[in-house]
């Protein structure tokens, strides 16, 4: 597949602060690419540089092989869906969508045809004459996306467009966006701080922190083998413990957490110092593991609370003397439906599910 966007050693400084720090990445044609990071990590600055609203301090942005330096936003083959959508309140829906086409000086009949076809595509046929204020949140969303998509950009940039919607609608829009993207085949670059949005929709995700890319890969790779301490903590849920390395072998280490729990764990990066951070996903803790299993850490849990949430039900429990609670996913087969607060239960976790990362001071 062709590379539609290529970014090389991109840096953006504001006075003394470095917002984007030496970022390089490639986005494949026709893929759904997400940039995931906490607020203030520089992802919006990165997006604005791709759109052309900000110039990089140094580095190169190439779209379909063409250097974008010095090209203003209105001449770039990218379109942006704004966080607050920025629909034009003085125009109706059709006027909003036709705005970009009129700037291309297309014939009126052609504009009308394209507006109608894109409205149909986003499921808003017959909405052309409505005023923007008459639309619901989800409909405004679709108009904003249609307004950008109708220009057939090389890349569609989306800046957390689902942020303002309520939870139910957001879940629905996630699926719709994914579907829309695979239908139109346009490359989407989606900015978000919501890891579930990124994981659900994307072909590839770039995790960003403090201006740097921590890891770029398919959602499953981020989840299953996080490349850094930050990714392990940011993507998906994890139980985290500061820990000390007690014994080190080549592929396995023995650690003691600050709560006193001793575990066999897997080092994910070279360990130079004894301080490390241990991550265990809630679903990798097995309740009542069979005696025959090997390569497993065993301990006893003291159940504190059950957090019932349908298919996402969790148990809060403590291990040993410590009061620190850890989260354990409850399997859905009702096998453990009888567990209640105060119960003691054996548990285990595979050594390769206990991931250790060095701590940077």
């Amino acid at each position: 597949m062709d590379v539609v966007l290529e970014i090389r050693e991109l840096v953006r400084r504001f006075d003394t602060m470095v917002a984007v720090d030496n970022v390089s990445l490639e986005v494949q044609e026709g893929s759904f690419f997400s940039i995931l990071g906490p607020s203030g990590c520089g992802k919006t600055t990165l997006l604005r540089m791709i759109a052309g609203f900000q110039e990089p301090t140094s580095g190169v942005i190439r779209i379909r092989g063409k250097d974008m330096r010095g090209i203003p936003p209105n001449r770039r083959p990218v379109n942006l869906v704004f966080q607050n959508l920025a629909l034009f309140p003085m125009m109706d829906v059709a006027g909003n969508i036709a705005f970009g086409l009129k700037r291309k000086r297309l014939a009126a009949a052609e504009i009308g045809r394209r507006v109608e076809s894109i409205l149909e595509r986003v499921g808003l046929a017959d909405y052309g004459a409505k005023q923007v204020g008459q639309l619901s949140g989800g409909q405004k969303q679709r108009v904003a996306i249609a307004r950008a998509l109708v220009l057939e950009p090389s890349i569609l940039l989306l800046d957390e467009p689902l942020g303002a919607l309520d939870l139910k609608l957001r879940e629905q829009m996630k699926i719709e966006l994914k579907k829309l993207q695979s239908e139109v085949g346009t490359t989407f670059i989606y900015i978000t701080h919501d890891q579930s949005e990124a994981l659900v929709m994307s072909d590839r995700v770039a995790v960003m922190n403090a201006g740097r890319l921590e890891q770029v890969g398919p959602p499953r790779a981020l989840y299953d083998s996080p490349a850094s301490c930050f990714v392990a903590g940011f993507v998906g849920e994890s139980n985290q413990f500061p820990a000390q390395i007690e014994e080190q072998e080549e592929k396995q280490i023995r650690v003691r957490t600050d709560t006193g729990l001793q575990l066999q764990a897997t080092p994910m990066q070279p360990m130079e110092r004894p301080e490390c951070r241990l991550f265990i996903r809630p679903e990798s803790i097995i309740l009542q593991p069979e005696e025959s299993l090997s390569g497993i850490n065993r301990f006893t849990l003291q159940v504190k609370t059950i957090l019932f949430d349908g298919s996402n039900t969790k148990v809060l429990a403590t291990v040993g003397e410590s009061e620190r609670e850890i989260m354990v996913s409850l399997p859905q087969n009702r096998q453990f439906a009888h567990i209640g607060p105060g119960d003691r239960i054996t548990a285990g976790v595979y050594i390769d599910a206990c991931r250790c990362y060095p701590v940077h001071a």
Partner: protein
Amino acid sequence: MRRETKIGLYIFLAPVLMWLLLLIVVPHIDLFIMSLRGEDDLGEAIWTLDNYHSFFSERIYWLTFARTATYALLVTLLTFLITFPVAFYITKVVHRRYSAFLTILLLMPFWVSELVRVYGWMILLRESGVINHLLLGMGLLEQPVELLYNDVSMVMGLVYTSMLFMAVPLISSLEGMDDNLIEAAHDLGASKLTIFLRIVIPYAAPGITSGAIVVFMLTLGNYLTPNLMGGKNSLWFTEQIYNQFIASFNWNQGAAFGFLLLLLSSLIIWAGLRLSRQDLGRALT
């Protein structure tokens, strides 16, 4: 319950209604009656349309009105052209922190009465004024020049006096505009000029309309500035009305002129609203 809310409404409306009735409606009825009165050849008071007729038959009267209305339109346009960039700069270009400060700076001169401000201009512009003094001192002029008492200085004075009434609605309507609209238009392929004409101006249209109406009406009804800065050749329609009431003691004629001013200016505003497809209700909210 319904009855009580109605009584409450009347109680709150009463001062406004009284104010309108006593200060606007009653005097206007009186003026209207007065404008329809006249004397016949024997000096008897009679009902007549002569006062209105003379406005159209005497060239000087309706020419003065046409002149006044044209200049008022010109003043409105100039005020808009000067104020809009200022309002745009204050609301969109400069950092938010300074925009309140700049707005106050803009409004400060208007804490002083109009009379004082006009005298300020006169001190600057008159033959023995500051500007002449400086130009003479620099050797750019040999003889002092009278910069006052012409149409240019009068229009300048009127524009200056009107700026506040244009700036406030423009600033408030531009302030409500989301900056992302400008960026979105830019992203969708619009040039700076297109953004200005298709996004910024339409967005600010209600503010522009209300500012333009207020400036036009105030300029048309202004007496002080044309009188002090305009000199003898710059006759303003309000001066005609004043002359009828005070100089000629022809109250009936003056009353008719007053009514004509009200009618004709309302007509011009109505035409302006129709031409720009603006809605008065939207402009005033």
